[in-house]
C-alpha cells in the first residue's frame, strides 16, 4: 500500500498550481468549460468496472476514495466537482430507479477515509459538519487562523489521519481481491500505486486555503498549519490490536493517552500493520470495514517557527540582573534585562513565549555601557512579524520606560540565521571596562606611567574563590591589553582604571588579587592594597549588531 512519505509530499505540493486552474474553471467560467470538466469525469466513471463501483458504494466507500483506489490521477478529481451524483448514471443503469445506494451514502461517512475526503468533520463542542465542499473545511481553518491572530504570507501544510484508515483501505482491498481478483481490471487498474488519503486531502484543500488565507503554500514556510484528524474509537481499537501484535509489546499504551495518537505511534502502527500477513489481518479486521456514522474530529494547529529579534543592550543599574534570577523563590535585584526587553517585545509579536540569549554576561552589580552587549530574543509562535517601523517603535518604547534601567540599540528582526550570527560574533572578543579603584596609599604620577606602560601583559588567574564551588579549579592565563589611570578630582586614593582585557578575564579579582590567586594583580603591580568598588563594562568588541 502506498504510504505517504516526504517525497510524495513534495510532489503533491508542486501540483498545487494545476488545482488552482481547475478551481478557477469551476467557479468563474462559462458553462462550456464546466461542461468539459463534467465530461472528463463522466468519461472516467464510464471507464471503471461498474459492478465493482456499485459494490464499493454499497459498502460505504466515498467517491474520492473510489477514484483513489482505481489509481485515477489528475487534480480535477480532487476538486468540488466530484460529488456523489456522478455515479447516478451507473446506479440507474443497473437498478432502474433504485436510489437506495445514494440514500445510503448520504447517511454515513466513508468507511475508508471516515469522511475526510467528503470534507466532513466535527469540532469540539460543535455539531458535525457534512458537506462535500472543501471550502467548508478551509473556511473553518481560515476562521481559526484569524481568531488566533496569525499573520501569514505562506504556510506548509501537515495532515495527520487516524491510522485506522490504513487498515480500512487494506480491508477494502482484500475484500475486492477476494471477489474480483481474477478479473482483468483488478490486475490492470487496481494496483498499489494510488493516491493516499493524506495526499488527496492536501490536493483538495491547498488551493482553497491559499485563496482564503492569501498565502502561498510552501514546503519551507516557517508557518506550519497542522490538521489533525482523529477518530477516537476506531483509533483506539486499532492501536490496541496492532500494538499488542508488535513483537516487543512494550509500547502498550493506556486508553486514556491513546486518543490523540501522535506521529510516533502512527508510524509504529503502520509498521506493525505492514508486517501483518493477509490472513492474520483478516482475523483481526472486518472485511469490508464497518460503516461509520461519525466523521473525524478536526484539530487545527498553527505554529510559526521562532523569529529572532537581535540587538545590543545597555544596563544602567547595579541592581538589575541579566536573566530572571530567583534564589529560594526570592527575586535578586529589582528587575532583569531579560524581562524588561522580553516583556516589551513579546506583546508586539504576539508570541506564546520568549527566550532571552546574550553573548556573555556581567555581574548584577556591573553596569553595561558604551557599545552594549549583543543579545537575541527568540519568540515562539509569533503571530506577527514586526516591520522595520514597529521595531523602531519597540526600541523607542524600551528606551523611554519610566525607570531607565535598560536601553537597547540596533534592534532588528532576524530569521533563524540570528543564532549563528551571534554564535560567530561571540568568539574572539575583547572587553573594555572602567573600574572605580581605591589603593591603600596616595596615587603618584609615577603610578600612571607604570600602568600605561604595561601592554599585553599576561596574568595568571586561578578560578576565583567566589565561583570555585561550581567551576573547575584551573590556572588560566589571560591578557590585559592595556590600562589607563584616570585621576579623580578631590581624591588621592580613588581613581578610575580603564582597561581592555581578553574575554573571560575576571576584573574584580585582577584588581583586589583574590588572596593573591590572580597574579600579578593591580595591588602587586602598585605594591599596595587595591580594592574595587564599582565596575562598568564600556565596550564589548564583537562582530554582531554593531
Amino acid at each position, binding site marked *: 500500500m502506498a504510504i505517504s512519505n516526504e517525497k510524495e509530499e513534495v510532489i503533491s505540493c508542486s501540483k498545487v498550481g494545476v488545482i488552482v486552474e481547475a478551481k478557477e474553471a469551476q467557479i468563474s467560467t462559462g458553462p462550456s468549460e464546466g461542461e468539459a470538466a463534467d465530461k472528463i469525469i463522466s468519461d472516467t466513471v464510464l471507464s471503471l468496472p461498474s459492478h465493482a463501483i456499485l459494490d464499493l458504494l454499497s459498502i460505504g466507500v466515498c467517491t474520492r476514495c473510489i477514484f483513489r483506489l482505481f489509481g485515477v490521477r489528475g487534480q480535477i478529481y480532487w476538486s468540488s466537482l466530484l460529488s456523489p451524483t456522478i455515479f447516478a448514471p451507473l446506479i440507474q443503469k443497473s437498478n432502474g430507479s433504485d436510489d437506495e445506494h445514494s440514500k445510503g451514502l448520504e447517511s454515513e461517512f466513508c468507511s475508508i477515509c471516515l469522511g475526510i475526503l467528503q470534507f466532513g468533520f466535527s469540532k469540539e463542542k460543535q455539531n458535525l459538519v457534512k458537506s462535500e465542499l472543501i471550502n467548508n473545511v478551509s473556511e473553518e481553518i481560515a476562521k481559526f487562523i484569524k481568531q488566533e491572530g496569525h499573520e501569514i504570507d505562506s504556510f506548509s501544510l501537515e495532515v495527520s489521519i487516524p491510522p485506522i484508515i490504513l487498515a480500512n483501505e487494506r480491508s477494502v482491498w482484500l475484500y475486492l481481491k477476494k471477489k474480483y481478483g481474477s478479473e482483468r481490471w483488478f490486475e490492470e487498474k487496481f494496483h498499489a500505486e494510488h493516491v493516499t488519503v493524506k495526499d488527496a486531502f492536501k490536493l483538495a484543500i491547498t488551493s482553497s486555503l491559499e485563496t482564503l488565507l492569501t498565502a502561498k503554500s510552501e514546503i519551507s514556510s516557517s508557518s506550519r498549519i497542522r490538521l489533525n484528524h482523529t477518530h477516537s474509537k476506531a483509533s483506539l481499537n486499532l492501536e490496541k490490536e496492532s500494538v499488542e501484535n508488535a513483537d516487543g509489546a512494550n509500547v502498550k499504551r493506556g486508553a486514556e493517552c491513546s486518543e490523540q495518537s501522535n506521529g510516533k505511534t502512527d508510524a509504529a502502527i503502520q509498521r506493525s500493520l505492514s508486517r501483518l500477513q493477509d490472513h492474520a489481518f483478516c482475523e483481526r479486521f472486518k472485511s469490508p470495514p464497518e460503516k461509520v456514522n461519525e466523521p473525524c474530529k478536526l484539530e487545527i494547529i498553527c505554529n510559526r517557527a521562532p523569529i529572532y529579534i537581535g540587538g545590543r543592550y545597555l544596563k*544602567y543599574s*547595579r*541592581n538589575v*540582573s*541579566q*536573566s530572571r*534570577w530567583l*534564589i529560594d523563590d526570592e527575586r535578586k535585584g529589582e528587575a532583569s534585562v531579560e524581562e524588561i526587553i522580553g516583556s516589551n517585545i513579546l506583546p508586539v509579536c504576539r508570541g506564546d513565549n520568549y527566550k532571552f540569549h546574550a553573548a556573555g*554576561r*556581567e*555581574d*548584577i*552589580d556591573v*553596569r553595561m*555601557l*558604551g557599545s552594549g552587549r549583543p543579545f537575541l530574543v527568540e519568540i515562539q509562535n509569533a503571530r506577527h512579524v514586526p516591520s522595520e517601523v514597529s521595531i523602531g517603535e519597540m526600541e523607542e518604547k524600551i*528606551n523611554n520606560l519610566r*525607570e*531607565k534601567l535598560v*536601553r537597547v540599540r540596533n534592534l532588528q528582526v532576524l530569521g533563524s540565521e540570528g543564532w549563528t550570527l551571534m554564535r560567530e560574533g561571540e568568539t574572539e572578543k575583547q572587553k573594555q571596562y*572602567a573600574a*572605580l579603584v*581605591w589603593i591603600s596609599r596616595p596615587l603618584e604620577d609615577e603610578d600612571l606611567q607604570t600602568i600605561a606602560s604595561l601592554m599585553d601583559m599576561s596574568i595568571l588567574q*586561578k578560578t576565583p*574563590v*567566589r*565561583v*570555585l*564551588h*561550581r*567551576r*573547575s*579549579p584551573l590556572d588560566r592565563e589571560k591578557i590585559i591589553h592595556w590600562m589607563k589611570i584616570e585621576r*579623580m*578630582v*578631590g*581624591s588621592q586614593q*580613588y581613581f*578610575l582604571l580603564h582597561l581592555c582585557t581578553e574575554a573571560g578575564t575576571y576584573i*574584580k579579582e585582577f584588581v*583586589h*588579587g*583574590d*588572596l*593573591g590567586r590572580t597574579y600579578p594583580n593591580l595591588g602587586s603591580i602598585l605594591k599596595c*592594597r587595591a*580594592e*574595587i*568598588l*564599582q565596575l*562598568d563594562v*564600556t565596550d564589548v568588541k564583537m562582530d554582531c549588531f554593531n
Partner: protein
Amino acid sequence: MEKEQKDEGYFDKTQTLKDAGMIEFSVPCHRPSSSEQRKEEEPHELLVPDLCSLPLTPPTAVDCNFTCYFAPDFMKPDHDQYVYRHPNGLCVIGLASTHVALKGNRVKTVDFNVGKSNRSEIKVSGKRKRNAQRFEPNTALCKVSTSNGDTSYIVRCCVKGSLLEVNERLIKQADLLNSSADREGYIAIIMPTPTDWIKAKNQLLSLEEFKKLRGLC
C-alpha cells in the same frame, strides 16, 4: 553573572569622605539625573562616581566577600586560626594575626608534606572536584617553621571538608605569612558539606567574640 550574594549597601554604612571633611566643596557633589544620563551619549560622565558617597576607607575584599570566624587555641594554646567563610560555602583557612608563630618571629618555611601525603601534590580537578581529600578538623595542613630556633607549628583544617587547594606560593615565599597572613598568606581552601559546616560553626568564634577574647577591641 556570578551568583554570589553581596552586600550591595555597604557603602552607606561607612563613613564618607564628606562626613570626614576630607574633600573641598568646590568639587560639585552632583550625580547626573537619569534623564540627563540618557541624553548624554558620551558615557564618560556616567563613569565618574559621586565622590561624596564614597567611604573614606572602603572595606577590603575579604570583609566584603567573607564572614570571618576564628578558632582560638586550636589543639594547642595560642594556635589561633581563622576560617573565612564565603556565601558559596567555601572556607579559607589561615593563621590569625594572634597566632603564636607570627608573634615576633619570621616564618622561615612552610612545609605541606605532613601526614600521609604532601598536601600540595593533590591535584583536584573538574567541577565535581575529583581527587579532593576529605579531611577532619584536626587533620594537619602544613608545618610552619620560624627563624626562632627549631620551633615549628602545625596548621590544621579546623573544619571537616574536602581540601580544594593549598597556597603553594608559601613554599617559596613563606614570609607572605608575616606580611599578609589574612590575604596572600592564606593556608588552604576547604569545602565542607552544609551539615559539617553547621557543626564546625558551633565550635568557632565570631570576629567580635574573638576580638573580645584577645583584647583587640
